[in-house]
């Protein structure tokens, strides 16, 4: 028998969704501008990169791993994309440059995956190293310059629309749809969850856990490239410092969305919803018009929000009897 309470605690998505709707309702009641379609669309557009990368990250975390290098990956990819397309640099055709960026993202993810699986290194260390190295490489490539002459053909990805919806938003929704389908409706997806749920049993069932991990990391790299292409092209300038702290946003979204850091449990929908919710916290504070000094408390409120969300879920999970009890 599924009660409402059961639903809220068992499927974290619903809990996050409830919180999301509640926040929307409260802030909307105070400032109706918050609920205007335009604002909702803009918020979704801004959350798009986190959502896109969180789709891949969810699978990585489900497998009991983590990737904290996505922010630096994004920096490198944006730099490369800018250098390749800018008329004053390589001036490649946009299509070629975009393909190259996608290829590079995939390669970066693959390298992470290879170091984790065949290098037998803990993923947090691999990606901590990559976080540092890739940041350095992108700074060296950019060499202190801004790339200010991005061709219009590239910026279309960031500011163009498709069927009236911003391209980045469409991409995010497509990525969510595809990865949800991947996770739920394909053998690969189910195997990823199985391998994360019980590695020993996965071994006995003959699941190729290293290859699954390789796939998840590579997918994350690829999706980071996708996110870079649809997000960084929103701006006319590519500067040093792109993607700083992005990894924390993504990991937080995934964790608050109900994915267990020790693997096995978590849904892409949960990560998606929590990315939206966390993205809203920043905007929310502006719409509440709390004035100038409230700004200084923004980060504290965000931190408290995360702590409360995680804690509430944790306690709900603990209180629920783990097994059916005999009378």
């Amino acid at each position: 028998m599924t009660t409402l309470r059961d639903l809220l605690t068992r499927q974290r998505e619903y809990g996050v969704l409830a919180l999301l709707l509640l926040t929307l309702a409260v802030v909307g009641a105070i400032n109706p501008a918050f609920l205007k379609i335009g604002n909702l669309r803009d918020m979704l557009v801004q959350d798009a990169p986190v959502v896109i990368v969180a789709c891949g990250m969810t699978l990585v975390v489900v497998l009991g791993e983590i990737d904290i290098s996505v922010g630096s990956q994004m920096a490198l990819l944006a730099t490369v994309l800018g250098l390749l397309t800018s008329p004053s640099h390589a001036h490649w055709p946009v299509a070629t440059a975009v393909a190259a960026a996608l290829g590079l993202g995939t390669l970066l993810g693959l390298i992470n995956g290879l170091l984790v699986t065949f290098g037998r290194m803990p993923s947090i260390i691999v990606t901590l190293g990559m976080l540092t190295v890739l940041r350095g490489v992108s700074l060296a490539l950019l060499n202190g310059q801004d790339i200010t002459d991005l061709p219009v053909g590239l910026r279309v990805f960031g500011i163009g629309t498709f069927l009236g919806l911003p391209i980045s938003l469409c991409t995010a929704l497509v990525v969510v749809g595809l990865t949800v389908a991947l996770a739920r409706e394909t053998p690969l997806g189910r195997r990823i969850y199985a391998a994360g749920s019980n590695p020993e049993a996965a071994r006995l069932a003959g699941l190729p856990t290293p290859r699954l991990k390789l796939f998840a990391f590579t997918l994350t790299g690829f999706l980071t490239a996708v996110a870079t292409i649809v997000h960084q092209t929103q701006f006319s300038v590519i500067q040093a410092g792109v993607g700083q702290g992005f990894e924390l946003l993504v990991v937080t979204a995934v964790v608050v969305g109900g994915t267990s850091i020790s693997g096995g449990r978590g849904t892409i929908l949960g990560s998606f919803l929590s990315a939206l919710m966390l993205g809203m916290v920043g905007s929310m504070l502006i719409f509440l018009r709390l004035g100038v000094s409230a700004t200084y408390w923004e980060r504290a409120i965000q931190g408290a929000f995360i702590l409360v969300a995680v804690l509430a879920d944790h306690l709900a999970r603990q209180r629920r009897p783990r097994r059916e009890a005999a009378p």
Partner: protein
Amino acid sequence: MTSTTPFVQISGLSKAYGGVPALTDVSLTIEAGDVHALMGENGAGKSTLIKCLSGVLSPSAGEVRVDGSILAPGDLRAAERAGIAALHQESTAFPHLDAVDNIFVGRELRRPGGLLDRPRMKRETQALLDRLGERIDLNRPLEELPLAQRQMVGLARALSQRSRLLIMDEPTASLSTRETEILFRIIRQLQSEGVAILYISHRLEEVFALASRVTVLRDGRLVETRPLAEITRDGLVRLMVGRELLAEEQSEDYAAQGEAILEVRHLTRAGQYHNISLDVRAGEIVGLAGLIGAGRSEVATAIFGIEPPDTGTVAIQGQVLPPGSVPAAIARGVALVPEDRQKQGLVLPLSVGSNLLLAVMKSLTTRGFRSPRKEQETVARLMQGLSVKAAGPAIAANTLSGGNQQKLSLGKWLATKPRVLILDEPTRGVDVGAKAEVYRLIRRLAREGMATLLISSDLPEILALSDRILVMRQGQIAGELARQDATEEKILALALPSGPQEALI
């Protein structure tokens, strides 16, 4: 031997872990339509054998032939293609996945286009479970299902492979009698369809009821393969243990017992155990029998302070222990040798010496500092007293054999000079020689005044050691038997659930 090629032929199979042989030169044949029992003490090499056979492990030497052709070693898919499926003893479930996924993951049914064919998988799952007479919520993750249902899902997974050789490692360990009967019916049905079954169990009656031939392993070596018709129950036991039954080694009568040391009153924890009260007196060994999942280990860990009970008290010599505090329990002289020595008993990567010191090192300090001299003495004394076979105290505990690990797990508590010793499955996975040593040790400790609570699923063990036997069923104490009039049948009668609703915890 017959002139035709046997269905499965294992020849000269050996496997060693890091130089320690687990299986040495084992050869046997399995015929189609045959139920072949594989027996032996825990640690005899059965699990290793079936892992090699099912392609989970690559053997160090030897080969497996199916229908005369060599099976690629260590290739699970090849074994599957050859029609070998295994139901492993360890928890092979994926706790976060539902029953359908658990059954089909790795061998999913697909629609054209590669997507999962969920409706068909669901139908087939339902059919399999119907065949097993099991009603399971297909939308719940397995971790939320009772143990027996999880076991049945594992069985369904093995059955779903439509294999020609089905390996079953202790399939009845946590099944009720009704479920066991269903299982037997299915095994016979499969047999009649020409499926070969390699059946591993400790329960002699099951083996005699099902199997036509039996292979006995001891210490990783093949002892004998024989038709069951040619062997008696005692004969089989002799083959397994290598000598007369230990249960016959009854000890002398006990001296008059002392005061009650351990007093447990109305211990209750929702969903695990209910209103447990028991006493253990000085010098007394109280057996705690029951099926797996009856709540015995949970009671033990509650007494020890690992998981506090919801209500109820534990008192040592009249002084009530604070609930949920292991250090307090230890300070009052309680020791628990837990059931899972690898996960609970020992810190395997640490050295033998460190493991022996873990529980006691605090009391070996002088003004807060460790004293190498005292520690060395303690370790040396314990290792000698327990006759642990290890190259030295500095060697890592995970290099030891199961029996020696168990001795460590027990021995580390002796240094704390406990007054109450709780033993949870103290001889699981222990070889025959070590088992006898453990029995002697338990008896000796009791003679010296130890109050012992012995949890065991091994009925002969309970009968051989206990002065008094408590039987748990579904989280409650179902009855008490005095030593003189306890028999396996009486214990089982108390332990087995009676009602139609048989869900165990």
